[in-house]
C-alpha cells in the first residue's frame, strides 16, 4: 500500500468518525412510537451523548431519517419525497415494527414495511421499542456510518 492510499484510508476513517458523532436527524413521526422516541431523546436516556441530540425539522439539513410510526399508503408518497429531499450522504432508521414490517396491521391502509419504498439501514423492532433498544439501534447506525456504509 502506497503512502497516498494510506492517507486516503485514514482520511475516510476520520470522516467516518466525525460523521458518526454528528447525526442530524429528521424525525418523521406519525404514530405512538413518537412518544418513545421523545423519551429516548430527552434527558433520561439522552441521545445527545451519541451526538444525535440536534433534530432538524427540514429534511435538507438532516443526515438520518428516523421513520417513527405506522406509514399508511396515503402517507407513503410524502415519506418518499422527504427522503428524496435529503442531501447525501443519508441514512434511514426504521423505528418500531410498523415501519419494519407493517407490524400487526394487515389491512387496506398500511404499508408493509417502509423498505418497500425507501432503503433502510437499521431496523429497530418493538411495539414500541424501549429506549435501550433505540440506543442500541443508534449505536449500530454509528458503526455503519463509521464504516462508510452509504447509499447514493
Amino acid at each position: 500500500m502506497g503512502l497516498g492510499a494510506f492517507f486516503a484510508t485514514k482520511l475516510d476513517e476520520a470522516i467516518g468518525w466525525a460523521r458518526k458523532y454528528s447525526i442530524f436527524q429528521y424525525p418523521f413521526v406519525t404514530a405512538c412510537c413518537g412518544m418513545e422516541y421523545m423519551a429516548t431523546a430527552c434527558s433520561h436516556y439522552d441521545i445527545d451523548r451519541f451526538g444525535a441530540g440536534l433534530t432538524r425539522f427540514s429534511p435538507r439539513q438532516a443526515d438520518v431519517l428516523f421513520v417513527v410510526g405506522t406509514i399508511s399508503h396515503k402517507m407513503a408518497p410524502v415519506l418518499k419525497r422527504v427522503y428524496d429531499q435529503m442531501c447525501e450522504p443519508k441514512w434511514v432508521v426504521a423505528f418500531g415494527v410498523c415501519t419494519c414490517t407493517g407490524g400487526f396491521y394487515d389491512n387496506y391502509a398500511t404499508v408493509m414495511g417502509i423498505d418497500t419504498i425507501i432503503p433502510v439501514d437499521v431496523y429497530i423492532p418493538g411495539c414500541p421499542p424501549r429506549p435501550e433498544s433505540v440506543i442500541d439501534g443508534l449505536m449500530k447506525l454509528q458503526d455503519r456510518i463509521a464504516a462508510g456504509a452509504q447509499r447514493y
Partner: protein
Amino acid sequence: MDGSRIIERLRERFATAIVETGSQWRDHTAVVDRAAVREALEFCKTNPELSFDMLTDLTAVDYLKFPGREDRPRFEVVYHLYSLPHNHRVRLKVGVEEDDAVVPTAVGLWPIANWFEREVWDMFGIRFDGHPNLRRLLMYEEFEGHPLRKDYPINRRQPLIGPRN
C-alpha cells in the same frame, strides 16, 4: 327525559315509521324508516322536550352474512344524539339496502354531519342525498371501493407507490 319516554314521543309522532325499538343497559334505540328519517332527526333536534342539539356520532354497520339478519337490509346507518340542556341520549338507526344505498343528509341540522357522512361514504359507500361535498374523507382519490364493507378483501391493498400485491 327518560329514554323510554323519548322513544314514546317518537312513536306518538311517527307511528309506523318507527320500525323497531329496543334498549340495552338503558341505551334506547329506534329503527326509523328511511322515508321518515329526515323528519325524525329534525323532530329530535327542534322539539323542545327532546332538543337533541348534538350529533355525537354518525356511522354505519355492514351486516353482510350476519347470522339472523338475512332478510334485513345489508347496512344500517346509526345516529347517536345527545341533548346538552336535558342530558339525555338516544340512538336512531336506518336500514339501507345495498342496491339503493342512499340516505338523506343531516348536514342542515348538525354541521358536524358533513365529515361524518363523508367518512361513511368513504368507508361503506353509502351516499347522502343533499350533502354539499360528498368526497372521500380518509382514503385517497385513487382508492377504489369501500374498505369497511365486509366483502372488501382483507388483504387487498392499493398503494400509490411501491409494490402492488
